[in-house]
């Protein structure tokens, strides 16, 4: 009486399965999944493996790197949660943004923006280790050097107000972007109140 388990064919199968199992451990070298963009902007990651290049530009488009080359596939929210749930849970909060507006040509806040400014302090309290970035902007009245300087002055003024209200100087940096990043694009020389602003990011 011979048992099936001991047949030579069974042995070969068992060995083949074991080899496959081992190979699959070394097979996967990693993967990349593009996530949906919350505000609907265009988004893409270009994945290069050896001489092969793949562009991921749709939600959950994925590339896997294997011992035998790159493979693209469609991942899903569930699969991402399973593999990346812990990493995603540790993602810091998005920077909270406040926008303050200025009187033309000055580093003085408009009346309405003085009230917005108060909201910044409530936000700071929500962050266990707050760091704050203040970025000044101008409209397109005046030369670039003048606007770079004015943007920085506006940011510095707001930074000093934050410090005078108890924010540690080490935790708040100021920068000026001049007229490079308008909310409302205009020709040079156009006075535009919505572009004369300071953005505060609480992170």
């Amino acid at each position, binding site marked *: 009486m011979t048992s099936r388990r001991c047949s030579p064919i069974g042995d070969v199968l068992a060995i083949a399965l074991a080899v496959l199992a081992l190979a699959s451990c070394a097979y*996967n*070298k*990693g*993967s*990349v*999944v*593009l*996530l*949906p*963009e*919350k505000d609907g*902007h*265009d*988004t*893409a*990651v*270009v*994945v*290069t*493996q050896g001489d092969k290049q793949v562009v*991921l530009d749709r939600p959950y488009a994925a*590339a896997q*790197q294997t011992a035998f080359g*790159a493979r693209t596939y469609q991942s899903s929210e569930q699969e*991402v949660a399973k*593999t*990346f*749930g*812990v*990493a*995603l*849970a*540790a*993602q*810091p*909060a*998005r*920077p909270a943004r406040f926008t303050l507006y200025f009187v033309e040509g000055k580093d003085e806040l408009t009346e309405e923006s003085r009230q917005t400014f108060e909201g910044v302090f409530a936000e700071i309290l929500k962050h*266990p*280790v707050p*760091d704050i*970035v203040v*970025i000044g902007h101008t409209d397109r009245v005046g030369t670039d050097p003048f606007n*770079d300087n004015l943007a920085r002055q506006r940011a510095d003024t707001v930074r000093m107000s934050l410090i005078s209200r108890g924010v540690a100087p080490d935790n708040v*940096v100021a*920068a*000026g*972007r*001049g007229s*490079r990043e308008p909310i409302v694009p205009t020709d040079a020389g156009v006075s535009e109140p919505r572009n004369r602003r300071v953005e505060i*990011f609480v*992170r």
Partner: protein
Amino acid sequence: MLIARPLVTVLCSCWLALTLAASAFAQDIGQVKIVKGDVSIERDRQSMPAVAGTRLRTADVLKTGADSSVGVTMSDNSLLSAGPNSILSFDRYAFDSTTNQGQFDASLKKGSLSVVSGRIAKQSPDAMTVRTPAAILGVRGTEFVVSADD
């Protein structure tokens, strides 16, 4: 000479103070915001525990243990967070807050990583890369996850 010497001293100390102030800012490329479990930073061949609030510098390497994770906000508003048993290295980082030009190269030696790209990638597509042992990712934006298996 009698007049010049104090002047030189004053100028030198001003220059020194300015350089120190500038370098204090230049060195901080980001900040650890979230730490769960066992997370360490390797800097200048020394290992120290990472805590919420720790500021990062170029060439820092973050390591997470089992059941651990870490979340970081970079100065350009990029967000990076790594899951358990991960090694994440900040190879190169430069960011000009006036022009938003810069370069950010990170590498995930192993483990899992989630990324939300920031101002550097927004200003110049391909100015941000993430490397794994098996692939190079050019980041045009914005949110993605990447793993590197042993």
